[in-house]
């Protein structure tokens, strides 16, 4: 068993070049950037402009800076990519691995250490960045709105990730809980005049309650069968909302839902409004920026709670349940409770997101909660990589932000004619993207499962080498 192995030394030798040395990569990228700078001074930095008979020399240093920056980043990424590829090759075949595998952290893991603070920084300063780039509050409205939309889906994705990604329960009706949350806020605030901050936890509790109600009948189901029942549940909620006219006002929806207030201070132009209180000039954008930070806070709360739960026995039980239900039971895990808590907690975050949706729109109708929404949220989780928090966030940005970007591709009109509306091809591109993903990254953008306990040093093994559990 402990016989000296010949493979060890050779494995270590092949391991050496595969290490992703960040310092060397940065150094090399810096050199490349310098060369780029030198080249771009004569080529890019000045441009001649003709104005009547005169010729001006216009400087374009921002362009040079941008090009140098892009080259720098690309060079670093190239190093990271090559290192990942090399380390994949260098990893021994898992079937032959009879000696411990001393794998370095993959380039992805190293990059993610910088990427997560970067993402967080961009998210936190997003309204400010937009304000600076667009040059005014009113001009930044579109992008702040888009940010709110993306973050709503990030939050929904993270909420569904608990059910699908961690507990492995395929839920096609997640939008039902979103609807429960939205209608909870809409009805409680319009009927009883309760404020948003009271309704938010109530909506979460109600959605969690509905999660349990859905959970009970489907306890014995898995996979495809579970998916069909949850799909039906989503439709039932929508149909009830349409047909129970006395309560929900049917298809016409509920309008004039009270707007969000800054902890009781309304966003109005009056003397007791937000702007007057803080001595600012009144601007409707204050409310949107507040909403942006509200959803950012809610999304980060979802993430924080999920990350904490993953380290607790209940979170570990979810993951164990995803991998092997029979093994779970024989280890003394109550699978009934485990599934119900997964449904309830996932649904609760859906409910939070729903009440946020209602407060942002000021109007809810059953139309907003159709199957396509569920499908998009599920697609975000699957494309992101089941169980991966950062993967889900990236997938939400791509899937929700991407189609919005299509609207702005006006140059396509020059190619395909005036009547061409890129937005009509949204779903086509969506499908093409899905197919491409399934070909190149069949287990999602980030398929590696990060261990929730890390001993001394990390030893990473690519997730693609590990077979999926079947139970």
């Amino acid at each position: 068993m402990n016989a000296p192995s010949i493979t060890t030394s050779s494995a270590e030798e092949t391991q050496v070049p595969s290490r992703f040395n960040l310092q060397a990569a940065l150094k090399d990228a810096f050199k490349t950037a310098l060369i780029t700078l030198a080249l771009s001074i004569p080529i890019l930095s000045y441009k001649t402009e003709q104005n009547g008979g005169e010729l001006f020399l216009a400087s374009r240093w921002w362009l040079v800076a941008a090009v140098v920056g892009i080259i720098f980043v690309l060079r670093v990424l190239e190093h990271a990519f090559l290192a990942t590829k090399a380390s994949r090759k260098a990893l021994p075949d898992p079937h032959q691995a009879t000696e411990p595998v001393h794998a370095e952290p993959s380039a992805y893991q190293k990059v993610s250490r910088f990427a997560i603070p970067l993402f967080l920084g961009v998210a936190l300063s997003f309204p400010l960045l937009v304000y600076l780039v667009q040059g005014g509050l009113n001009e930044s409205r579109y992008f702040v709105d888009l940010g709110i939309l993306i973050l709503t889906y990030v939050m929904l994705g993270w909420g569904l990730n608990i059910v699908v990604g961690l507990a492995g329960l395929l839920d096609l009706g997640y939008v039902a809980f979103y609807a429960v949350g939205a209608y909870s806020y809409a009805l409680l605030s319009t009927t009883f005049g309760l404020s948003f901050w009271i309704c938010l936890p109530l909506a979460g509790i109600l959605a969690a309650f509905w999660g349990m109600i859905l959970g009970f009948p489907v306890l014995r189901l898995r996979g495809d069968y579970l998916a069909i029942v949850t799909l039906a549940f989503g439709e039932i909620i929508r149909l009830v909302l349409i047909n129970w006219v006395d309560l929900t006002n049917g298809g016409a929806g509920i309008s004039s839902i009270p707007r969000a207030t800054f902890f009781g201070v309304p966003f109005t132009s009056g003397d007791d409004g937000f702007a007057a209180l803080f001595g600012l000039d009144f601007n409707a954008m204050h409310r949107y920026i507040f909403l942006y930070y509200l959803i950012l806070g809610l999304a980060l709360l979802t993430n924080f709670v999920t990350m904490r739960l993953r380290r607790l026995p209940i979170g570990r039980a979810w993951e164990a349940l995803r991998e092997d239900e029979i093994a779970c039971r024989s280890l003394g895990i109550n699978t009934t409770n485990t599934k119900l808590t997964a449904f309830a907690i996932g649904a609760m975050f859906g409910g939070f997101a729903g009440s946020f949706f209602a407060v942002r729109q000021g109007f809810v109708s059953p139309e907003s909660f159709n199957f396509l929404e569920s499908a998009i949220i599920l697609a975000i989780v699957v494309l992101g990589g089941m169980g991966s928090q950062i993967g889900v966030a990236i997938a939400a940005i791509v899937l929700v932000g991407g189609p919005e970007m299509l609207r702005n591709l006006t140059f396509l009109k020059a190619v395909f004619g005036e009547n061409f509306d890129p937005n009509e091809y949204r779903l086509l591109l969506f499908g093409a993207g899905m197919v491409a993903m399934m070909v190149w990254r069949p287990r999602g953008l980030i398929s590696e499962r990060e261990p929730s306990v890390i001993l001394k040093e990390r030893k990473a093994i690519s997730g693609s080498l590990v077979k999926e559990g079947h139970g």
Partner: protein
Amino acid sequence: MSTAGATNPMSQSAAAPARQPLLSVRGVKTYYGNIIALKGVDMDVHEGEIVTLIGANGAGKSTLMMTIFGNPRAREGKITYAGRDITQMPTHDIARLSIAQSPEGRRIFPRMTVFENLQMGASINGFAHFDQDLERVCTLFPRLKERLQQRGGTLSGGEQQMLAIARALMSRPKLLLLDEPSLGLAPLIVKQIFEIIKELNEKDGMTVFLVEQNAYHALKLAHRGYVMVTGNITLSGTGKELLENPQVRAAYLEGGHH
């Protein structure tokens, strides 16, 4: 772990019938839908024993083991553990009675690390003696110690089997149920695993119920054995008796590898 029953196992198995068995199975019938899999099985496991159950494919060995764990549940008959009726108990509650199982097909958690797999095994008793138990299984299975941070799915078959047994040991069970620990393993690894089972029994007094295809090794190791044929126990006796029994030799040992 418990030190009870650390005396000479042979004398104990001789004295055992006088005491109440740790696990007793009486007239158990188990069905899969309308198909009967166990046709009224009687079986006892006494404290401090290694009992093995041998039989051909499809005889119902694994079904008996799973029935003891309440999945599927016995439709008739009675199963008692340490004097308690566990016939109708849910699986996860049975697991809390200090019975641990290493199920057929290993069933480790492939995307979790070895360390996390072992943690899952200890979650029943709330990680009460986690560090000690971890050290203990690492001594028993040095291979696992080298691989604590590796994902379960990247282990070899033998290592996965070791992990499945180690995970079951993490809850400090009194009774260990092992379903075909030798399945698909190289003879050398099989020998190691059987030695470890023996060590657990002799040093810690752990009671072991072993379901095996590998009749020769299993009977050599066990104090007592049962032979199962199509849902019925047809023979029982001490390991030595069964090894010498001409019927057993003809059906399970002749031409077999030793």
